[in-house]
């Protein structure tokens, strides 16, 4: 960006209704733009093809529907009238500008770790967006979940406020990765296992969780169900392009790649990779099912006929196109939700600037019955060195009905 453009941008700021940001320099805005992308704010606060950050996207939670509010500088319906302190308090403490408790669908449990300077840079960037008058009713939960004071108790049990503190025993790269992964990138919002109230469990850090009908698999350094077999470069490649030789992002992770990680600096992605690979977990490998088990025999035949053309006889797929099923966290997750849904419904991998092919897997639900899907999933989870709990016909049946009930 040239000097004239910077001057013009600052000029626009001085004219903006936001007094606090008037003295902000362009580099802060650019930093804020980047950090807003890292935080993936648009995923919730921008509706598809709608004005940037004008709110309105509904987030399905186990408790009901929440709608993301308007973050544009509109004074009446956006955050234009907020002070910097109110903005920082919302992100670091989960308390809105009128003092109300915010719901955890807004990941303040992670954003609390973000430094005040970085949050103010984000605010400076948001202040440059065109103000949009769009009144959003955020809380659309049913009783009793619509009572916000209940969140005070939730916070006491599950929320640890406080900015990120670097670990002096670790490298600068590791600490950068930890800061991003635990803070703005809020990986744990999906990948930490949760209790029935939606709070992180004490021993489930990045070990995977099921939400929105998908398994967010373990992303610890575990060789079995985590991403221990991925190199740092491969993790960065996955986040940058949406795929690597092991996997392709689909479902909710496709949105994360689309809106956020594909635009991140490679050094930041490598730092996150460094941090994730250092996260230990002790996910136990169950005994492998016998290849002569009738479900395995049936599953192998189904695999050969239906799957092997793309995923190959050895289950390793085609690099950057068809994901490997061998050592796949999505296939091996204790909860088989993803593998069943992908067989039943199909899936489309994300398309990015770096890898514009968005290959898809078709639905097989119309030609495989529940018993066949169960046998196939069981086979995938117990061959090529894979080992995971078998999948029952009843589980497939339940999930088929569940998927059919959703549009």
């Amino acid at each position, binding site marked *: 960006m040239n000097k004239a453009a910077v001057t013009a941008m600052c000029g626009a700021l001085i004219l903006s209704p936001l007094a606090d940001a008037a003295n902000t320099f362009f580099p802060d805005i650019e930093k804020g733009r980047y950090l807003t992308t890292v935080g993936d704010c648009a995923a919730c606060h921008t509706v598809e093809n709608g004005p940037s950050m004008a709110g309105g996207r509904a987030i399905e939670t186990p408790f009901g529907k929440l709608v993301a509010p308007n973050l544009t500088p509109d004074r009446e319906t956006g955050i234009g009238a907020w002070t910097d302190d109110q903005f920082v308090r919302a992100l670091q403490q989960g308390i809105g500008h009128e003092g109300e408790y915010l719901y955890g669908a807004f990941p303040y449990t992670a954003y609390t770790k973000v430094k005040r300077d970085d949050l103010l840079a984000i605010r400076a960037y948001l202040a440059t967006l065109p103000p949009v008058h769009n009144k959003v009713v955020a809380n659309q939960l049913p009783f009793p979940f619509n009572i916000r004071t209940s969140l005070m108790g939730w916070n006491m049990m599950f929320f640890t406020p406080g900015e990120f503190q670097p670990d002096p025993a670790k490298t600068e790269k590791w600490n950068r990765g930890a800061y991003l992964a635990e803070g703005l990138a809020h990986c744990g919002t999906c990948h930490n296992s949760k209790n029935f109230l939606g709070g992180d469990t004490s021993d489930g850090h990045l070990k995977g969780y099921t939400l929105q009908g998908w398994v967010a698999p373990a992303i610890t350094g575990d060789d079995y169900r985590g991403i221990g077999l991925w190199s740092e470069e491969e993790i960065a490649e996955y986040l940058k392009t949406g795929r690597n030789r092991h996997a392709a992002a689909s479902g909710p992770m496709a949105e994360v790649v689309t809106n956020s990680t594909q635009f991140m600096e490679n050094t930041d992605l490598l730092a996150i990779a460094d941090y994730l690979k250092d996260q230990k977990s002790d996910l136990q490998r169950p005994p492998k099912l016998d290849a002569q088990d009738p479900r395995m025999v049936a599953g192998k035949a189904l695999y050969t006929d239906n799957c092997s053309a793309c995923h190959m006889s050895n289950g390793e797929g085609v690099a950057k196109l068809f994901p490997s099923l061998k050592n796949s966290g999505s296939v091996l997750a204790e909860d088989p939700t993803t593998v069943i849904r992908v067989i039943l419904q199909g899936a489309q991998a994300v*398309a990015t600037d770096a890898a*514009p*092919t968005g290959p898809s897997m078709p639905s097989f639900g119309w030609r495989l019955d529940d018993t066949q899907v169960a046998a196939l999933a069981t086979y995938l989870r117990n061959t090529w060195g894979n080992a995971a709990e078998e999948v029952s016909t009843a589980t497939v049946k339940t999930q088929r009905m569940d998927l059919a009930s959703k549009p």
Partner: protein
Amino acid sequence: MIKKLPKKDVAIVGLGWCGSIMAIEMAEAGLDVIAFERGPWRDTATDFNIGYVQDELRYVIQQELMITAAEDTYTFRNAAHQTALPIREYGSFLLGTGVGGSGAHWSGLTWRYNPTDFQLRSHLTERYGAHSIPKDLLIRDWGVTYSELEPYYDKFEKMAGIGGKAGILNGVYQEGGNPFEGNRSSEFPLPPMPMTYAPTLFAEAAKNLGMRPFPTPSGNASAVYTNPYGVTMGPCTYCGYCSRCGCANYSKATPQTNIIPALMRKPNFTAQVQSEVLRVQMDASGKRATGVIYVDSTGQQYEQPADLVILTAFSVPNVRLLFASGIGQAYDPVTEKGLIGKNYAYQTNSSVQLFFNNKNFNPFIAGGGVGQACDEFNGDNFDHSGLGFFGGACIMSNVTSGWPISNRMTPPGTPRWGKKWKQATKDNYLSTTVVRTQGSSYPTRANYLGVDPTYKDRHGRNMMQLTFDFPENDLRMSAFVTDKAAEVARAMGPKQIVAKAPKGPYNIVPFQSTHNTGGAIMGDNPRDSVVNKYLQCWDVPNLFVIGGSAFPQNAGYNPTATVGALAYWAANAIRNQYLKKPGPLVQA
């Protein structure tokens, strides 16, 4: 009432191979580009589902990817003294529609034409004397040479992930490649496809006869490949559903696999589907295109103004658009005046069926580009002195499919139906194969595209009229090359062969080839050609007409790579010359 839309920099008509190439090149140049496609949107992920795409009835017999005669057809006759009648069901050739066009339903054979093919008249004149070329043959030089096109062939092959073995690499012959091909600046981006049994047997037999067989260049990926646009192809699974079908495995090079995923990410590109361009809009001078008129699926007509109009609608529809727009003068075979529609040519193919006793070819393990070929009798690779014809054909064993409905070869004398027919198809399915020849087609005065005086299309435009029969030259050529193919076939050791060379008259009903060429040919002067060497219309400098329509005659190869190379070549001229100084790129 025609609604007028805001102006674009470039309007492209047809989103197949040429349209996609021109669109991404123009978008890369920063221009605001719109491409019109009369058929529907089609992408691999949504429309070519691995769960059901291998459906012979749907795609091969019912031809789902093709235009139907009800939507658009042509009248046909063999000769001018006959009355042309509308084609009621496409047969001899099948015109694709929808995004990807013919690039979606092609097979995958990806040949470069020989250097002498581009300078045919001057080459034959030099080698055999001007008097040796029959007066009736309208063969011409293209105005562009092989060496000028070579970098663009290379670019097309790298975009499309073509597998093969170079024959001549930087001037040096490479064992195992085609010894007759033009020089290559680089090896194919992928190795040849692993061979199946029939081509392997063919290559052994050809070698024993002293020929030099080589793997056919294939647009079905032989391995995983990521092209310069960043899109990835998967290795071909040999399912045998290439021709007339879409590819679900991202293996066959198609616009939707190799270009469109990258093109659609460009904010300065718009694809307008189910919108048929009716004509190019001209200004009062008739020397400048001002845009296009199109009709959408509701019947509403629009004017899309544009600074640059590029026709990429396939050879025959390109010519049709020139007629409908009143550009240039229609060719008249009596007075021999006019150029639009002149030099229509096709492809002269033949086959030799081989019936064996104890072979199992597994013909269903197949791919459009899988095969072995010999070029000894193609183009002017052999001495034509005293033969009474020019041209030639590629001889190949190219097992493209083992479709269960269509692929039922039986020996002569087998009943056409009933118990004996069933038994014969069962006995011969696995143990029969074919050696094919794909021959050149040279234009004559009598073969041309014109405007039908009687029949109108659904938009009220006069239909286009096709007048074509196999020229004597081409029938002699095919008889000669088919004999050579039969020699190779016999050397493969079958119990029986059945050689079928075309005899004429040309029949519009059975499928032969969708390699229609000519009608708006390129050349080095406006007296003999419609477009200059950069595919720019001589009469209308802001109109480019790209595709097989520009071929002065057709060679003994599948045309796709040449069509693609011409598109990249024209795009380069637009980007590096025309945009800097809009106007004629070649002074007449």
